[in-house]
């Protein structure tokens, strides 16, 4: 009887050891799981930070590229004006003076008139190129007038009809106004070149966080997913400028039913 009791007591010791062994193992494996779980979280967080840094860096590069581009445009426009237009004006004045000379025979007279004609058209083209490079009206009269002029120009010179409604919005800088102007320009270019649109509806309005541009056309439309994945230079340009303006770009399009672009200031907290 006593022997049996002792045996059972022995067994209890083994069982207790085993029970603690099991609990120990469970805690150990749980600890291991928690260790991996938190390491994983930490690694993911670090990766996210890295990606964030990379994105900011890319954005800075884009911003620099675009501002360099604008600066170059401004410089070329200025040079066109100073170096070419001014001198052509001298040529045209001289030609005019020469025409007043009564000793000229008919042939000479015709040649000088020809020179005068060529100079005038060249002057006109150089003025137009400079104007396209940097619309002087934007500097002098602001975004609203510049956009109105742009839309009127397009409506007059192409078969595209633009209906617009523009609020007089105040942007923080001239550069930002130029970005909005360029976006509008690019949108119209895309609609005529790729979409073959015949009518467009453009709105620029104030909203709570800044402004909103809505641009709707009746062109061919496109597959948004595919175009967003590998966008051309035009769309890329719009995207970068929108990102510089801290705006969201939203695109909707159905094939054969036109497309809608919405550019809207991001909500700042």
């Amino acid at each position, binding site marked *: 009887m006593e022997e049996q009791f002792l045996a*059972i007591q022995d*067994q*209890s010791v*083994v*069982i207790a050891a*085993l*029970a603690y*062994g*099991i*609990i120990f*193992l*469970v805690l*150990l*494996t*749980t600890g*291991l*799981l928690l260790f*991996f779980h938190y*390491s*994983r979280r930490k*690694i993911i967080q670090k990766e996210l930070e890295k990606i964030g840094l990379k994105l900011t860096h890319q954005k800075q590069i884009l911003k620099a590229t675009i501002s360099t581009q604008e600066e170059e445009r401004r410089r070329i426009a200025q040079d066109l004006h100073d170096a070419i237009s001014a001198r052509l004006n001298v040529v045209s004045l001289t030609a005019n003076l020469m025409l007043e000379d009564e000793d000229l025979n008919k042939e000479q007279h015709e040649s000088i008139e020809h020179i005068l004609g060529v100079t005038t058209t060249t002057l006109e083209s150089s003025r137009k190129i400079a104007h396209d490079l940097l619309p002087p009206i934007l500097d002098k009269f602001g975004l609203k007038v510049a956009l109105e002029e742009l839309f009127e120009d397009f409506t007059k010179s192409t078969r595209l009809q633009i209906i617009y409604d523009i609020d007089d919005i105040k942007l923080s800088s001239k550069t930002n106004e130029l970005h909005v102007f360029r976006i509008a320009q690019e949108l119209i270019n895309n609609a005529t070149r790729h979409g073959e649109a015949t009518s467009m509806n453009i709105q620029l309005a104030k909203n709570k966080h800044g402004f909103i541009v809505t641009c709707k056309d009746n062109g061919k439309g496109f597959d948004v997913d595919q175009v967003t994945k590998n966008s051309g230079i035009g769309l890329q340009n719009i995207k970068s400028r929108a990102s510089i303006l801290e705006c969201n770009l939203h695109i909707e399009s159905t094939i054969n039913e036109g497309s809608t672009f919405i550019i809207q200031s991001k909500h700042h907290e």
Partner: protein
Amino acid sequence: MVILNDILKYLGLTLLLINVILFFKSHNLFQKIMAYRIIFIYLLVSLIFSLINEHMNMKKTNNLYLSHFYFAFQFILLSFFYIVNFNRRQQKFIKIIFVIVLAILGSQYILYPKELFGFNLLEVFITSFPLVVYSIIHLYNSLSQKGQYLYINASILIYLSASTLIFFLGNYLAEFDREVVVNIWFIHKVLYLVFLILIFLEWKSNFSQYKIKV
């Protein structure tokens, strides 16, 4: 304690059945996701084993030799589960271990058929330890990749490592007084419940959403 033990046993069986049913509900994944297929088969066979076990228990026949089939089947299926989720180098490692383990088991039973009628310690060790190692490798993989099947992996790691320890002493415990051993089987059943709950969570987080999408 004995009554509580019985309750836990039937709770485990019910949960296993629920898991099988839930996995069966997402059967449209059967063709699509290999890991799902393996887990589903694993649960189904586990249920069949449990029912046979229960039946034999009632008839009071010796059911220990069933355990050999259970360990072998568990090892084979879970090895496949990890093969599907590992990279090429790790897959090679699993395949080598797989062949070695099956070779050892086969030759042992041919040479010593007597071993079939008790807990075979070598068998418990070589069929469980590799799986624990795989689950740790899987955790390591999840650090750098998108972590998949982490619940199932956790359940395998916790349950297998603890239950292996119990089975090591299986032969010894079989000779013990039933009243004393009941505590150990109690812990084992709690662990098995945790195992099943984690598999249920896996189904909920991973497979149940698929059902809505498809």
